[in-house]
């Protein structure tokens, strides 16, 4: 009985028909803070006007040339006294995002409606508050090897720190988890929240993502030769890497159809089972994630009005994602990456893609692939180079892609309820 302890259970029956569990989950409030600005308004305007938030690198400790998507004002944020122990760039960025678009009030209303113990919290991050530990290592005492007395690991750097901070800050006591699957983290929070709601563990959920600039990711991606020293240009023939950005955002999910709210129509998740830091060469995992999202949403590819690509602007990502896109969509549906606006916000990329998708539907807006001059002849998807050049009468249903290290893939479909 090594390992297996089931006894004589017959080999299980295959059940490949997935339930359409996401159909009745509504997105009732949302906000995002990126290099384009804090809250929906500056993000909406920059996307409409095709204006980048990327700037020539000026981040502390970075000694190589690149562009970054830094959020202004993060260091001016002061956390409430009760949460002072959580003070780090990542939690300050989360706090800045929370202060926008009436999200505090919307969460208070949610608590009244459902009770604080019936609201789940699902947050994606890749590096949490690691910058705090970077600073502590830089000040390490040479005689004793000890980290400085001000260093508080559990409330800042620990993977769970953003969730503990938000639980305390918002007075929540429902189910809670951090998802850390690299660059797909805050797309997968939608799937986990939907499952917890489906299982009856909560009636509503706050999903979100927060990832902040730090030396670890900038030097790490640079060591992998994936960072561009110019403005990133997704799908361009001359693309040569990413610009790293930071972002935070939140979406409130509620069970059932809520008036005037968009719906979470489908989520697809898959693994590449290929390589730790390169995508599957034919984009097999990406195909599975997109197809599973379509199946769960009970939609045909032609019904997707726009796809927000992962589109990091590395040579390999954009090529393999295009192969996957051509397999699923045959090159017809309009699509673009918004990394040229915000940079690649890593563990927050999923929530940025999700909130941008909501904006595109609300504003009937299709963003261009910013900074892209000449599309690579090996890329065949219908990538938008001019604003609203492909706009149908209405943008109702949008897909957003996220693919991460470790071959972790997620596709979301958000739209007007069908």
């Amino acid at each position, binding site marked *: 009985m090594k*390992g297996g302890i089931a006894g004589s259970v017959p080999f299980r029956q*295959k059940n490949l028909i997935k339930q359409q569990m996401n159909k009745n989950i509504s997105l009732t409030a949302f906000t995002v803070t990126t290099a384009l600005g804090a809250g929906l308004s500056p993000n909406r305007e920059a996307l409409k006007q095709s204006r980048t938030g990327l700037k020539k690198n000026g981040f502390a400790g970075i000694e190589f040339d690149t562009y970054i998507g830094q959020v202004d004002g993060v260091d001016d944020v002061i956390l409430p006294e009760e949460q002072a122990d959580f003070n780090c760039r990542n939690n300050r960025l989360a706090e800045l995002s929370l202060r926008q678009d009436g999200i505090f009030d919307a969460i208070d209303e949610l608590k009244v409606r459902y009770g604080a113990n019936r609201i789940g919290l699902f947050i994606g991050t890749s590096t949490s508050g690691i910058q705090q530990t970077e600073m502590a290592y830089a000040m390490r005492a040479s005689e004793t090897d000890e980290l400085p007395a001000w260093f508080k690991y559990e409330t800042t750097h620990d*993977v769970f720190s953003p969730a503990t901070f938000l639980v305390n800050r918002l007075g929540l006591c429902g189910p*809670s988890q951090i998802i*850390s*699957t690299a660059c797909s983290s805050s797309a997968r929070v939608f799937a*986990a929240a939907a499952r917890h709601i489906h299982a009856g563990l909560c009636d509503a959920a706050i999903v979100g993502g927060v990832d902040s600039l730090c*030396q670890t990711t900038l030097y790490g991606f640079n*060591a992998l030769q994936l960072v561009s020293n110019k403005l990133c240009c997704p799908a361009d023939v001359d693309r040569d890497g990413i610009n790293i950005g930071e972002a935070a955002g939140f979406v409130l999910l509620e069970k059932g159809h809520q008036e005037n709210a968009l719906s979470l129509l489908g989520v697809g998740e898959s693994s590449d089972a290929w390589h730790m830091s390169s995508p599957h060469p034919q984009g097999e995992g990406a195909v599975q994630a997109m197809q599973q999202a379509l199946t769960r949403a009970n939609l045909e590819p032609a019904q997707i009005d726009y796809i927000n690509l992962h589109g990091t602007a590395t040579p390999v990502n954009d090529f393999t994602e295009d192969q996957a896109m051509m397999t699923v969509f045959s090159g017809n549906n309009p699509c673009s990456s918004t990394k040229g606006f915000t940079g690649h916000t890593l563990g927050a990329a999923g929530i940025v893609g999700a909130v941008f998708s909501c904006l595109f539907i609300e504003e009937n807006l299709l963003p261009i692939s910013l900074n892209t001059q000449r599309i690579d002849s090996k890329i065949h998807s219908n990538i938008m180079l001019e604003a609203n050049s492909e706009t149908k009468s209405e943008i109702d249903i949008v897909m957003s892609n996220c693919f991460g*290290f470790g071959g972790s893939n997620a596709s979301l479909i958000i739209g007007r309820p069908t």
Partner: protein
Amino acid sequence: MKTVGIAGIGLVAPGIECWDSGRDLLASGGHYEISAEFPVLRPSSLSGNERRRTTDTIKLALQCAQDAMADQSVVGVSDPELTSVFACSSGDLNIVDRILSTLTMPGKPVSPTHFHNSVHNAPAGYWSIASGSQAPTTSIAAGEGTFSAGLLEAITQILADDHPVLLIVYDALPPAVLLKHRKITVAFGVAILLVPEKTKYSLSVIIHDGEACCSKMINPGFERLRQANPAAQCLPLLQNLALQQSTSLKFPYLQGQGLVLDLTINE
């Protein structure tokens, strides 16, 4: 919530190299020392070359996972329906230590391999590569409640899609400089294969509002182990599995909440 079946267990802890030896030790009620030698981690699912490139955290998670899947009669590792949940409170702090030490050196020469191994989902990535399965894996954290959060995530996946889920809960020993700040004093890993069908062992869980005082181990050595690592919170469940005892257990989850787990041994 729905009752699910347990179809396999994997275990790695000080002095315990697999569930077979852990089960015998837990059932015997014999003396246990937390200072027992930690088994050599040599998961066969990784090639020798890969094993050299990976870290103790990755090897710990994979060794537990493959122990639970050894001699499986219910589901194979490459089954496209088998998803996995990797739950770990602190990630790979040894890799963090190496990267952050490098960042204090001239030129900050971060190793690309260290960097891609540093992501919280590195064990999940290596597991999917080793198993060849493109089924989804997730990687989560929930502090001291990481075992409970992992169990809830796994059960919600079974409820949603009616497929088996392999749950792996683990935390490695942090490097000395961080140990003071994250008190995980021994490495520990457990894997539990959960299936929608009825097996000999059924479990169901509910969230309990209010601080649920958690189930403890009577054996002082095992109780020290339970308190030494968030993943080891599972020990009361493992002991009752080893003793073939139906029981109701409490586990820490989040502040103001606990998890109540009912284990039933089906005859």
